[in-house]
């Protein structure tokens, strides 16, 4: 997900200057990494260069000059296209690191893969408890609940994979050591 596309989405709600856009983003997605202002600024320049955004106004009511940007026709079309496309279903890299460690533990003999998976399960569940606490707090905004749910369902998927792997460690060890 490019910052450019995110900014197009934010500009669709109405013109704004760089800091406005950063704030809109950070408020709407409280669990996401905050947008870096420098990144917002360079991405806006690029959008203008590509004709996807343009300067709406430049104001300086007493303070420093601030440039407000708005979406162009082309920007709006680009946004429409982006929003109409599915996100590529990428595998979750965390699960791959777990698999890499399990395999390396077997291959190196450094430790016990079953014990490692138990340790990993405890770490995952501890994180899931934190996320559950975040989303069940009274009056939690739906955006926070849904962000927490997204993380929870991904952690849950890792755990299912780990349960599955834990029950087949013997066969995996044979495959790894015979290779």
């Amino acid at each position: 997900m490019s910052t450019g596309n995110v900014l197009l989405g934010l500009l669709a709600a109405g013109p704004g200057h760089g800091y406005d856009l950063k704030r809109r983003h950070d408020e709407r997605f409280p669990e996401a990494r905050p947008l870096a202002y420098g990144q917002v600024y360079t991405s806006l320049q690029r959008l203008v260069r590509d004709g996807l955004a343009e300067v709406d106004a430049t104001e300086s009511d007493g303070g420093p000059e601030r440039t407000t940007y708005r979406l162009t026709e082309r920007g709006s079309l680009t946004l429409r296209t982006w929003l109409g496309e599915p996100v590529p279903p990428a595998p979750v890299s965390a699960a791959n690191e777990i698999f890499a460690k399990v395999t390396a533990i077997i291959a190196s003999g450094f430790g016990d893969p079953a014990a490692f998976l138990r340790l990993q399960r405890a770490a995952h569940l501890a994180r899931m408890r934190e996320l559950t606490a975040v989303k069940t707090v009274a009056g939690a905004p739906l955006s926070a609940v849904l962000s927490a749910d997204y993380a929870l369902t991904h952690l849950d998927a890792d755990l299912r994979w780990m349960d599955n792997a834990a029950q087949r460690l013997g066969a995996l060890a044979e495959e790894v050591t015979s290779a």
Partner: protein
Amino acid sequence: MTTPLIEARGLVKRYGTTDALRGASLRLLPGEVLAVTGPSGSGKSTLLHCMAGIVRPDEGEVRYGAERLDQAGENRRSTLRRTDFGVVFQFGQLVGELTALDNVALPLLLAGTSRAAAHKSAGTWLERFGVLGQAGLRPGEMSGGQGQRVALARAMVTAPKAVFADEPTGALDSLAGEQVMTALVHAARESGTSVLLVTHDAQIAAYADREATVRDGVVETEDEPAAEVTR
């Protein structure tokens, strides 16, 4: 260290040639929500039944305060299940001929509470679990999820010391499951009730304070209690 509310030590339970439990030990602390997870057939339900005094283990002990549940007679154990413990299973344990309201009021009526007071309290618990609208329905007229919530309301209505719930959200979709868990955990915290929760679902287990995992009839891991539960 906190004295457990209920403690199982070295439980063995055999069914014919099957060893359902092979030396399982577990502590349920006062006021905590404890998730018990593990593969199918690993002995989770059997462990829950032993700790709730529903089933007597062949070996090992179950302590409830100064009492040995594994040695208590059927009368004493069934009294405890009416007064000190609440139990919820995955499927049907409501009385089919009674409405939801009467089902929830039943344990109070059996304990000698007046009809009016029992119904009032039952209504409050149905509301907490979001099924007050179903108060007049019989179990056969409710969805699986609604029945499950009524069963939880019935388990909580006597303000028990412990609730034993075996896959209480097993029949629910994830959103309904979350509502039930939120209501259960909230109610348990408020009344200081311990909950032993058997589940396959890690997202449900994440509502608990601790997790114990069962494998091949033994408790394989049990999270350390958080530094003194303070609430």
